[in-house]
């Protein structure tokens, strides 16, 4: 196994509720204008629900320490 794995248990514990509904709503209200998205208020509940799921997955990914020099770009060897 690659040697760069470190589990950050404290972050993993946040998985079920990575972000609250109120936090997600606040985040949405900031991000939508930055992205030039004028959202019908009727969309908010669905987007917020998806944001919470997505950020829960993000917390799982962030709960893993990858070696600093491990970049996603391809490497070419002569």
């Amino acid at each position, binding site marked *: 196994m690659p040697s760069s794995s470190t589990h950050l248990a404290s972050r993993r514990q946040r998985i079920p509720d990575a972000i609250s509904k109120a936090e997600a709503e606040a985040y949405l209200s900031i*991000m939508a204008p930055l*992205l030039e998205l004028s959202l*019908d208020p009727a969309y908010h509940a669905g987007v917020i*629900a998806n944001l919470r799921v*997505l950020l829960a997955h993000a917390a*799982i990914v962030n709960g*893993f320490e990858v070696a600093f020099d491990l970049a*996603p770009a391809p490497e070419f060897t002569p």
Partner: protein
Amino acid sequence: MEIAKDVLSGARNATETMRDTLHRITQHDAELKCFRDVFQQGALDAAASLDKRRKTGQKLGRLAGVPFAVKDLYDVAGLVTLAGAASRRSEPPAQVDAALVRALKAEDAVLVGTLNMDEFAYGFSTENQHFGTTRNPHDLARIAGGSSGGSAAAVAAGLVPLALGSDTNGSVRVPASLCGVYGLKPTYGRLSLEGVMPFVPSLDHAGVFAGTVEDLRLAWDVLAGTETDGPVAAARLGTLQGWFRETATAEALAAVDGVAEALDAVRPALLPEAGRARSAAFCITAAEAGALHLDRLRRQASEYDIATRDRLIAGAMLPAQVLVQSQRFRRWFRNAASILFDEFDVLLAPATPCTAPEIGQNDITIGGKSIPVRANLGIFTQPLSFIGLPVITIPVFLPGALPLGVQLIGPPGGEAMLFQLAQQLEQMGLCGPQPIERYA
């Protein structure tokens, strides 16, 4: 491929075959909803042209007269590529066929239509708000899986012997599993995506469905420009443990274990952090797809399927740090898989955690826990497409049960080994589609 053999030998003409195919589509597709468009006249004209060429002694291709259809995100010249989205109706038609459509036509296969899918390929169920729900040919009350549900169901019902799909997170393997057909998701980058509507460019794969290993292999050889005949060793076999068993129903485990027990020397294998890989694939999917659709969301958000729209908007808002971390983890995970393939040639895992859910079913209980069914249909496929591994899903039928797929997973470029193993299992009678009486 039987149809091609008959057409090439003159045992049956292509026009007759095509009439039968079109009749079957007309007869059954109203209830199955596999097709978006059927090219009645174009298919008959192409078949007649093949018959004429054969009569005049011209050489025909390896797929002479074989009807095929493509997921509605492959460009077909003269047709608007909708990708399951009504909002694309005003787009200009494609100027040329997608590269893979051209490759099949170059071997004299005949395109008969385009197939239903989840809107923009973002889903595992083919419950399309605009074009209807594709039904599972084994039980019309159940979903076909997605996003290439039209492709899998059309092959399962015998409407076409061959169909193209695409697989970003499992969109070939999930419907292949639920509909009981063979599905190939090759190594990332191995098949051309020219003329295929992108969804998540760093995860998108073209893929194929067929009713037999021989048909799948021939399609692969044509599409990839390769030749997979000849023995290739696939001696070191492993069954994936951990993540790939924790959220599977007893049926899914029985399907994998039945295959493993029938083969000699299958050892347990562990692909570390597979659950986290699924989460990273989820994040990359949302971010890339959200970015891809952002401009259209600004102008036409109301025209999207509600579920697709909300996912895409959320994805567009994902912090860049998460995308970068997911990509870096992807590199780590690929290295871990590479180490595992030092020990194994082919790995086995369930393709889906359960058999086809009912249309409208929201949850499934596995191991005493209730989980959302649609989001979790891809839990065993996502970690593998995340790092581009080639996979053939083989259809397994347990007595009295709906079909379930078993994934045969190889190292990058390992398609020939997978075909050999799939062929061996088919010859042993362990896998292969079962005819459906309703469509016999």
